[in-house]
C-alpha cells in the first residue's frame, strides 16, 4: 500500500508464524496521519486485534516491531524502533522504544513495521532482505546469549549472501526462551527492555530477526530537512544536558543530584539517600570505569557507557540499573553492578524489573515472609539469582514472574515497588510527586518515561516545587503527550531534554528561571487550553522543540506544535482505551502504599505522594471519567470514534457501567 507521505516506506509486513505465510498489512495514509508510527501505530493495530480475553502467550497476541517516519531521515537520534505487544508481565499492552540500528535497516529492507502473529512450530530466525522474507531454523542458536546470537547471525548472513552485508538484528536470550515475564529484546547492546517483549518473542519460537536492504528513505522536503537537521545537531551538541552531561556522564550523571535531593531510592525505596553513593555514582563510573562513550546511529548525544568486564569492553549500566543495583540493594561495589548489568543483558532480561524484584525478595526475606537466601548488602549470590531467573530454576522460577506476582504469593504488597505490575525506575517519587502521578498513570505500568518524566522539572533540571501536587497533573499530561508523539515519530526521548532552554539549565539560580519554576505550578489553565484547542498552537516552537517541524518536513503532513501535541493526546488515550478492555481503570493507577502512605521524611507529610488528589485533576485534564476511563466524547474529539470498541464504550457509558 503505497503512501503519498514522505518518511515512510509505505509497507507494513504481516507474518503468520503458524503457517509461515507473509502478506502486506493494510495501513492507510489516514492511519499514518492519525497514528504517525512507532508505539501509536502499534497500539492501533493491537487495538484492532486483541480481545479482552486474549492471553500474552497465545497465537492471537501480536508482536509488533515498528519505526517512525523520522527513522532514517538523518534527524538526530532516529535509528530507533518500537516493540509493542500484550505483556505477560502486566497483562496489558506494553511498548518499548529501543536504540541500536534495527529501525533504520528495517526501513532499508522496505518496511515501516512488522506485525507478527501465530506461533512457529520450531525455533526460527527470520531474515527480511529487500522485501523478501526467509525463515531459517534457529535450533543451533537456541540457548545462546544475546551477543553470541548476534555474532552467529552475522556469520550466517555472510554465508547466505556470499559477502558481509550491513544489517540490523533483534534477538532474545535464554530469559526470553524460558518465558521470564520481563525478558527483553536486544539490538546490538540496546534493549527493548520493558514489559516482557522478549518472552512473547520466545513463546512464538522466534530467536531473532535480521533486516537489510537498499531501499531509499525519502523525506518529503529533503532540503529543508537537511538544513533543519544541521541546526538541530548543533543545538543538541551545545545544550548542557545533551551536549555535556549525557555525553560525559551518561544517564548515571543524574545520580548525585538524586542523592542530594532525596530522590535516590535506597533499600527498596525505604529511604531517598544512600550513604555510600560516592562509590557508585556517575562521576565515579566516568572516572574509573568508562572506556569510551557510544551512541546509536545518527545520535549526537552518545549517552552509552562502555566499561570493562572480564577484560572485555561491554555496555555500562544506565542510571536506573545503577541505582537499583547499588542503593536499591545496599551494594557499594560498582564493578559488581557493571558485571550484573552485562550478565542481565547477555541473559536477555529487563535490568529494572530484575533488580527491583530482587530488592523486593531481599526485603521479604528480611521481614521473614519468604526464606529465599537473598539479603540486602549481600552480593555473592546475586549473579546466581539472575541466572536462576533466566533459566527458571529454584527461587528464580518465582522471581521470573516479577514483584507483583511474588507479593501476591508471599505478602508485602506495600513494598513490591511496581505499578500495574511493572517495576518503577530508581527515582523516588515521594520527593517528586508529579513523577509519582506519572508512574501511576503510565500506560505500560510504572515507567518514568511513559509517565512523562516530571522529575526533570522537579529537581533534576528545573526546580518546580517537588512536594506540591499543584499543577502537576496538567504538566504531567503535557509531557506525556509530547513524549508520545516524539516516540511515535521514531526519535529518542532524550532529545526532549533540550526542550528546556539552554540558558535556564546552565544557570538555574538566575531570577528568571526561579520565576518560571514558581509560575509553572499555576500553568494548568494554559495547558488545559492547549488540550481543548490544540489548533490555537498553529506554529512551531523555535529552537528548543524541532520535532514538529521535522515531522512536517519528513512527511509533508501539515504538522504544527498544536497538532503534534494532539497526536500525543490521541496516542495516550488510545492506549488507555485499549487497556480499559483489560479492566484497567482508576483502581489500577496506583503506587505501593510505602510511597503514598508512609512519608519518606518522618513527620513530614509532604514527602509522600498525594496520588488520589492528583488523579482527580489528571482525569479531568485528560477528558476521562472519574473512574479513569476515556469518555465517548473524548474518544470522538480525538478521532478515535472509528474504532470498533468505540461503540462498546458508548454503550457502557449509557448503561452507567463506567
Amino acid at each position, binding site marked *: 500500500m503505497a503512501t503519498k507521505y514522505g518518511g515512510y516506506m509505505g509497507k507494513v509486513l504481516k507474518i503468520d508464524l503458524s503457517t509461515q505465510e507473509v502478506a502486506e498489512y493494510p495501513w492507510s495514509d489516514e492511519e499514518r496521519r492519525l497514528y504517525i508510527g512507532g508505539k501509536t501505530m502499534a497500539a492501533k493495530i493491537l487495538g484492532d486485534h486483541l480481545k479482552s480475553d486474549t492471553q500474552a502467550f497465545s497465537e492471537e497476541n501480536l508482536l509488533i516491531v515498528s519505526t517512525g517516519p523520522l527513522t532514517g531521515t538523518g534527524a538526530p537520534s532516529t535509528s530507533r524502533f518500537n516493540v509493542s505487544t500484550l505483556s505477560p508481565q502486566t497483562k496489558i499492552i506494553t511498548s518499548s522504544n529501543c536504540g541500536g540500528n534495527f529501525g533504520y535497516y528495517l526501513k532499508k529492507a522496505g518496511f515501516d513495521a512488522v506485525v507478527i502473529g501465530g506461533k512457529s512450530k520450531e525455533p526460527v530466525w527470520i531474515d527480511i532482505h529487500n522485501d523478501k522474507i526467509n525463515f531459517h531454523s534457529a535450533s543451533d542458536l537456541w540457548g545462546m546469549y544475546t551477543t553470541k546470537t548476534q555474532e552467529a547471525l552475522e556469520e550466517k548472513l555472510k554465508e547466505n549472501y556470499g559477502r558481509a552485508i550491513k544489517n540490523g538484528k533483534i534477538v532474545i536470550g535464554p530469559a526470553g526462551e524460558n518465558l521470564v515475564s520481563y525478558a527483553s529484546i536486544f539490538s546490538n547492546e540496546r534493549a527493548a527492555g520493558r514489559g516482557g517483549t522478549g518472552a512473547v518473542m520466545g513463546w512464538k519460537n522466534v530467536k531473532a530477526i535480521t533486516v537489510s536492504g537498499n531501499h531509499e528513505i525519502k523525506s518529503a522536503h529533503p532540503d529543508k530537512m537537511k538544513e533543519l537537521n544541521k541546526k538541530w545537531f548543533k543545538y543538541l551538541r551545545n545544550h*548542557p*544536558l545533551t551536549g*555535556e*552531561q549525557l555525553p*560525559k*556522564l551518561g544517564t548515571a*550523571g543524574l545520580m*548525585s*543530584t538524586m542523592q*542530594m*535531593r532525596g530522590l535516590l531510592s535506597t533499600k527498596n525505596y525505604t529511604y531517598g*539517600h544512600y550513604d555510600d553513593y*560516592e562509590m557508585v*555514582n556517575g*562521576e565515579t563510573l*566516568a*572516572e574509573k570505569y568508562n572506556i569510551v562513550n557510544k551512541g546509536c546511529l545518527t545520535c549526537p548525544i552518545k549517552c552509552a557507557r562502555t566499561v570493562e568486564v572480564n577484560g572485555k569492553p561491554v555496555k555500562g549500566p544506565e542510571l536506573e540499573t545503577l541505582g537499583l543495583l547499588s542503593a536499591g540493594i545496599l551494594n557499594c561495589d560498582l564493578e559488581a553492578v557493571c558485571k550484573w548489568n552485562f550478565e542481565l543483558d547477555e541473559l536477555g532480561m529487563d535490568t529494572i524489573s530484575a533488580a527491583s524484584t530482587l530488592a523486593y525478595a531481599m526485603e521479604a526475606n528480611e521481614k521473614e515472609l519468604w526464606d529465599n537466601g537473598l539479603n540486602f548488602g549481600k552480593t555473592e549470590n546475586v549473579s546466581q539469582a539472575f541466572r536462576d531467573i533466566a533459566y527458571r530454576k529454584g527461587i528464580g522460577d518465582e522471581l521470573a514472574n516479577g514483584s507483583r506476582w511474588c507479593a501476591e504469593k508471599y505478602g508485602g504488597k506495600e513494598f513490591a515497588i511496581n505499578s500495574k505490575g511493572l517495576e518503577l525506575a530508581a527515582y523516588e517519587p515521594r520527593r517528586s510527586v508529579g513523577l509519582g502521578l506519572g508512574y501511576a498513570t503510565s500506560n505500560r505500568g510504572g515507567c518514568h518515561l511513559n509517565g512523562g518524566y516530571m522529575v526533570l522539572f*522537579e*529537581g*533534576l*533540571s*528545573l*526546580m518546580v516545587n517537588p512536594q506540591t501536587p499543584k499543577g502537576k497533573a496538567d504538566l504531567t499530561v503535557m509531557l506525556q503527550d509530547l513524549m508520545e508523539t516524539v516516540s511515535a515519530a521514531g526519535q529518542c526521548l532524550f532529545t526532549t531534554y533540550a526542550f528546556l532552554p539552554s540558558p535556564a*539549565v*546552565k*544557570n*538555574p*539560580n538566575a531570577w528568571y*528561571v*526561579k520565576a518560571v*519554576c514558581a509560575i509553572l505550578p499555576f500553568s494548568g489553565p494554559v495547558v488545559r487550553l492547549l488540550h481543548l484547542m490544540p489548533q490555537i498552537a498553529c506554529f512551531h516552537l523555535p529552537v528548543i522543540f524541532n520535532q514538529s517541524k521535522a515531522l512536517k518536513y519528513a512527511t509533508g503532513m501539515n504538522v504544527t506544535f498544536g497538532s503534534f501535541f494532539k497526536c500525543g493526546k490521541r496516542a495516550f488515550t488510545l492506549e488507555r482505551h485499549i487497556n480499559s478492555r483489560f479492566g484497567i481503570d482508576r483502581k489500577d493507577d496506583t503506587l505501593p502504599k510505602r510511597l503514598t502512605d508512609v512519608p519518606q521524611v518522618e513527620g513530614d507529610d509532604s514527602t509522600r505522594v498525594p496520588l488520589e488528589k492528583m488523579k482527580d485533576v489528571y482525569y479531568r485534564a485528560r477528558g476521562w471519567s472519574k473512574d479513569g476511563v476515556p469518555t465517548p466524547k473524548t474518544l470522538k474529539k480525538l478521532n478515535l470514534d472509528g474504532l470498533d470498541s468505540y461503540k462498546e464504550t458508548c454503550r457502557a457509558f449509557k448503561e452507567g457501567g463506567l
Partner: protein
Amino acid sequence: MVTVKLYGALRLRCGLKEMSFYASSVKEACQLLARATGVDMKEFKKSSFFVNGKEVKVGTSLSAGDELVLLAPPQGGLAK
C-alpha cells in the same frame, strides 16, 4: 578546614573531585575553587550548595569540619 566536594560535568571539566581548605562562607569557597582550577567563579556560583547534607544559599557561613557539596548544573538550581 572545610572539605569541598564537586559533582556534575563541571567536576570532569575542571578535573577536581575534592579539596580541603579554610573558608568562612560558601561564597569564599567558590572563590578559592575558581583560583585553584582556573575556572570562572560564576560557574561555581551556578551550583546548588549543600552543607553537611542540608541545602544552603551562597551567603551561608562555614565552620571548621563542614562538608560542602557543590552540585553543578544541570541540577535544577537552589530549592530555596
